[in-house]
């Protein structure tokens, strides 16, 4: 098993402890979707304001899930439904593949926004994949 600090990179720690896109005040969202990980109790709500294209999140989740939700909200803000679906599918697909022997082999993440590569290590921690996937699987349920 890889080091715990390889999993909890500084980027993820920062995002998880102080997310920039948390909080969906009343009246913000035109569309919402909820997700829950029954195993660990993580709960997220992904909120989209279709008028501005902004995405935010709320909920109670572990640090990995919170960081993932924060990145998800940031990267999907301003995307069309189709572009959001493409990004979600690409990220979830990358998470599903075994990690390469070195970062240079990680073609899956190289083709996506660089911030997502911070999550590549979770593939060595299968039990935590659900935490990272949850916000993305949740936003995929948005009907807009």
């Amino acid at each position, binding site marked *: *098993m890889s*080091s*715990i*600090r390889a*999993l*909890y990179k500084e980027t993820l*720690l920062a995002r998880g*402890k102080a997310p920039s896109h948390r909080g969906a005040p009343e009246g913000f969202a035109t569309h919402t979707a909820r997700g829950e990980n029954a*195993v*660990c*109790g*993580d*709960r997220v709500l992904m909120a989209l304001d279709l008028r501005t294209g902004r995405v935010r999140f709320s909920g*109670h*989740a*572990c*640090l*990995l899930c919170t960081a993932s939700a924060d990145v998800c909200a940031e990267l999907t803000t301003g995307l069309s439904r189709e572009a959001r679906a493409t990004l979600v599918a690409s990220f979830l697909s990358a998470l599903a593949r075994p990690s390469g022997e070195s970062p240079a082999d990680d073609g899956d993440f190289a083709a996506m926004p660089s911030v997502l590569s911070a999550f590549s290590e979770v593939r060595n*921690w299968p039990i*935590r994949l659900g*935490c990272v996937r949850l916000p993305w699987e949740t936003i995929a349920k948005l009907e807009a």
Partner: protein
Amino acid sequence: MSTVTDSAHGGSRDRVSGAKSPRSPERDYFPALVDPKRVYLDSAATTLVPSPVIDAVLSVYREGLGGVHRGVHALAARATERFELARQSIARHVGASEFHDVVLGRGTTEALNVLARGLSESLREGDEVLTSELDHHANIVSWQLATARVGAVVRVVPVDAHGVLSVEAVHEHLGPRTRVLALPHVSNVTGAILDVKSITGAARARGAIVIIDGAQAVRHLPVNVTELGCHAYVFGAHKTYGPNGVGVLVAERSLLEALPPLHGGGHMVTNVASHTSTLAPSPARHEAGSPNLEGVLGLEAALEYLHGARLRGAFERERVVARAVRSRLSSMGFLRLLGCAEPSVGIVSFVTIGMHAHDVAAFLDSEGIAVRAGRMCAHPLFERLGQSHAIRVSLSAHSDTDDLDTLEEALRGAQELFA
């Protein structure tokens, strides 16, 4: 004794005298603990298995035993004899009387469902089944499903703000329509021990059938179902140093004889025609299908191990470590223990202030420490306590102060990383 970890010598060292606390001698019985750095604190989920149990399980395959209650050849006869001797041994271990039968099934959850489904056949609309907020889902959902079929009602005895289920609260909730009282002997979250004997008399006087979930009790306490006075007591092998896939339902024979079986199949019938069958007497009528022979022999060996461990002082050592766990964790400012009931066994749950339990548990795992994180299949209790998740440390016969030292150091490491 105040200790510091001295990994070079193995075992803790007293801060003042420098004397070394030896590792628990019970560790030598567990092959999974051959790595001295492994700290297993998740016995409430499932216990590690000692060598005698492994040997008992493998003996079935090595000797070619099989066909319990089914063959006339020597291997089947031997298997049947071993199986029934194990049943008698299990009965003795839990203090079953001549008026009890021991049903050997697949687990605690199945045993509770056997009772719930069977008893629901005699419930009427408006009858009540009394459970508690302290219960594991197995003793909640099984009754919800069973009562919904007949329009009976599940009533829930609340715990107090500290997660304590009081005997007084149970008595207050016993009513004229209470037909079944089903409670946990030991909480899988707080470790609190329920004073079952103080409840069974009153419940019986009201005509209620008393069922006790002993899943967390048998590995920590000497259990005598006759003295407890309940109608039925259930527990599983895999939380009692035994193999997976075996559960025990020990109950009054009169109850089991009247209880409709949950499963139908071989062995639980004496005669089968195309359209009707004659049920076998208890316990056979509740043991449909081929039994888990290796599991039952493993459970027998587990209970024998437990008896020996108790004679070697393991129960008392575990109590000492449990007191130390509560004392030292409660002194760590970034933790808050859940529940404060005494008496209790070595199960301690706590919330990590400013950190998510899942992250902390992952960090502990990276340090070789196995704990449980989440809501422990006890959602109503967590709802009452206003918590969404916690970490649970659950001790075993092999737990020692060295485990606690390692845990404490790792918790501080987690705080440095996550807080």
